[in-house]
Each structure stands twice: as C-alpha cells, then as structure tokens.
C-alpha cells in the first residue's frame, strides 16, 4: 500500500513538488526499495529525453481557429445578458418581474396573516368544542346540550356558522 502510494508520487518527487515531510518519506522508501529506485531511474531518463527536444512554435492557423472559437463563446454570453437587460428596460416586463419577486417575498407573510385572522375567527369555536368534549365526565352536563354546542362548533369549523334563532 505504501509502495503503491510512493510510486504515484515519484514524478512529483523528481520535480521537487512534494512537501518536505512527504519528500523525506519517499527518500527513506527509495533507500530500501529496489523497484522504486528502478522506477525513479526510468522517470529521470524520460525527463532527460524530453528536456533535450527542440521548442516548436504552433502554426498560425491553429491560433486563428482558437481565437475564433473563443470570440463566438463571448458573443453568446453577451447576447443573453443583453436580451435580459433589454427586456427589463421595457416597463411592462419590469413590472411583472417586480410583482413576481414581491409575491415570492410577500406570499408567506400574507398567508401567515390570513391564517392568524382565520384562527381568531374559528379559535373560540375550537375551544368550545374541545371543552365540551372534555366535559363529558361532568355528571350534571346535559347530553343534548353538549350535542347542540359541539354541532354548532363543528359547523363553524366547517365554515358554515349557524346563527342562533333569536327570540324577542
């Protein structure tokens, strides 16, 4: 395992790119491992060969092709940004966009407020219903009256509140 890891680091060791501590560990391993020493010698030989190769300038045609492709990619990016900028300069589109942003921000706030008001509207009905159900154990409570109270609270919770019949 250590051997395999050292083999992968030999190239970097040769180029002097390893941390000092890792470099020391590789050197210690090389002192004991013939296979790694052989591998290092091979790498050093290849590197020497590469260094002796002459430098060659790329042909002008390659540069032209490369520049053309880079320019095309820049134009595509600019077109999208320009289209968006142009669109937002139109008042109607800008207003709709602002509305969407406003809705996204305001929707949870508005929903919270509606829920809060709705809770105030039905809260006491829920309280009466819950209390009536808790009062079943009261030995004096009238079953029929509990039925009337729970029934009215149920209707209010269902959104169809009963208006009690008034008497003069």
């Amino acid at each position, binding site marked *: 395992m250590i051997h395999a890891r050292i083999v992968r680091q030999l190239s970097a060791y040769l180029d002097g790119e390893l941390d000092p501590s890792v470099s020391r560990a590789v050197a210690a391993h090389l002192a004991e491992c013939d296979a790694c020493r052989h591998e290092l010698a091979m790498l050093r030989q290849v590197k020497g060969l590469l260094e002796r190769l002459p430098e060659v300038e790329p042909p002008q045609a390659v540069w032209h092709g490369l520049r053309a492709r880079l320019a095309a990619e820049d134009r595509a990016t600019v077109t999208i940004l320009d289209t968006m900028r142009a669109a937002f300069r139109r008042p109607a589109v800008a207003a709709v966009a602002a509305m969407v942003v406003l809705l996204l921000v305001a929707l949870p706030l508005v929903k919270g407020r509606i829920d809060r008001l709705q809770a105030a509207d039905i809260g006491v009905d829920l309280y009466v219903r819950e209390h009536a*159900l808790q009062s079943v154990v009261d030995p004096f409570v009238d079953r029929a009256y509990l039925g009337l109270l729970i029934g009215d609270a149920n*209707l209010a919770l269902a959104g169809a509140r009963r208006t009690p019949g008034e008497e003069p």
Partner: protein
Amino acid sequence: MMAVAEARKRRGPSFVVRAAVACVLTVAAAGAVASAQSPKPLPSAADILRTMFAAPALVDYEGTKVISTVQGTRAETVTILEAYKRLGRLRLEFLSPESVSGRLIVDDGLSAWQYEPSLHLVIRGPSFVQGTAHPERATEVLRRYRVSVLGREAVIGRDTVVVALAPGEAGSNRRLWIDEATGVALRTEERDAGGEIVYVSYFSRVSYSLNLPPALFRFRQPAGAKMLNFYVSGDAVTSVNELQARAGKDIILPARLLNRFAFRDGRVARHGAFTAAAAAYTDGVGVVTVFQTPISRMAFPNVGGPVATRTGRARFLDVGYFRVLVWQSRGMNYAVLGNMPQAVLIAIADELAASR
C-alpha cells in the same frame, strides 16, 4: 227452637256482629287515610345523587326535550327529540328553531355523526356520551357543593325530588328535578349570581323502558352527502412536563388552579393550520380548560363583550352552560372555559398572569 233459628236467619247477623264489623272497617279506613296523608320521607341528597349517577347504566328513555339559554340580552329555545340506550348510545333529532331544524346527531358510544340536511353534510367526530355509572361520585359532589333536597314535585306526571346545588368556592347555582324512580333529571335550571335563570332544560314528554331498536343508534350516511372528519384533538398526555415538551416552553402550566382544580390531562388541539395547547383541570366534578396560542398565530378573537381584568385586554362570552374568558398577555392568547361564574374565570386568569 227451629222457629227461632229460622227467624234469626231471616234477620241476618246480630247487632253485636254488625257493630264489630263496622268498627273494623272504620279503623281500617282511618288508617288508610292517615297513611295517605303522612308524607313519604325524602331521600337524602347522597341517595338521590347516587340514583342519578347510576341511571346511564340502568335506564333507556325517549322523549322531547326543550333547552332555553339566555346569553346577555339574547335567548334561544331549542327543541330536540332525545333517545338514549344503554350503554352510552344517543340519538338527537333537532326540531326547532329553524336554524337547527333537521340536524341529526347519532352517537354509538365510539363516534358521533352529525348530519346537516341544509348543507347535505356529515361531520364525524369523537363520542361525547358517558354511558357508565358513577354513583361513587356523589361523595365528591357533596364535598364540592352545598347540596340540599328541597322537596318533591310532579314533573310531566312523574314524582321528582328537587335538589339545589350551590357552589362552594367555585361552581354554579343549579337546581335539578330528578325522577325518583329512574334517576333521570327531568328538569335542570341554572342561575347566575343575581339569581336570574340563564339555562333551563326540561323534558316535555318522556317514556322509559322502551325496547329501542339498535338500528336507531347506527348512522347511515345519506347518498351523496359530503363527509368531514373532525377528530381535532391530539393525543392526551397526563403530565404537565410532557405537555410543555409538546407545546413549547412559553406556555404556563401550573399543577393546580385556585388551589382547587388539579391538572387532569392536556393535548395540542389542531384544526388546519391552527394549533392551541389545551390543559384540562378538574375539581372532581366540573372541568376547566385553559387554551394557549401565540399571538403570532392567532389575532385576538373579537367575541362576547369586554370585561375588566388585571391581565389587561379581555373579553367574556356566555354560551349558556359554559362561559369563555379570552385575554392576551405577553405575546400569548389565553382562554379559560368552564361552567363556573365569570368571577371565578377572572380569578383563574389573574392567577395565570401572576404565575408567568
């Protein structure tokens, strides 16, 4: 001799015998009159309450009940056909007023179904009928209330014992006409602190010992009716700490209220997006429920009329047998419900505010 005997036979019994028979008849008649005039001794308060609390397990009935409630300047009278079958099965058919006419509630002891014909709507919820007998609770009532037996009265042709319950530290002034033979309350009156009647419930007709068919207590959903399930209560917990863990640290949960009502159980009640911590307290007879909801989740409910409390903004609503006090304090909406007078609910509110 034969002639004398024949003569006696023709005259009938002698004067002495006739006098003796007359005396016996006179004494017997006098005894009967005397026994009719001497009143049967009244049962004790404990005995008549035990009879009343045992009735749900012993007596079936069917009758027409009239309930009148007074809420401030408003009054409402509701007429209901009520049928009860042991143990804990109930059928209510609402006859009047028009706003409730046609409503049917069938409770089989496990679930209750409510049918509203005008909306073609069925609402299903938990049972609200206690079918078991609890005669031993008479002792608890006698400890909490001043109970007195006022006498006998006939109600719809039946002998009733009139019992008055006056609250001790908390409770309501109540008067019951209890059928001496069956234990069923044929008439109930409740009065406010000023002695005015605020709630009356009475049978205008009742029949006992009927073999009411079980099918009467089974609900059949009308074809095409919309069904809603309203099991709004969460699971009950019996410890204050557990309820606090479920409902949040901001709620106030004393173990006792007014040093009289002990914490019984609690739950987080839900309906849609709305939730409230509900804690039930009892003195062994009545129930007080305290609800708490953060003001961020519920605006102040505009119900009933304003009342002055030490807690600040508060409103009081009388729904007949129950009373509701709602108030806001330190970011929380509170409500306390019970069948006790307004002053007791306000005292509970003050105690809760002080314990915060």
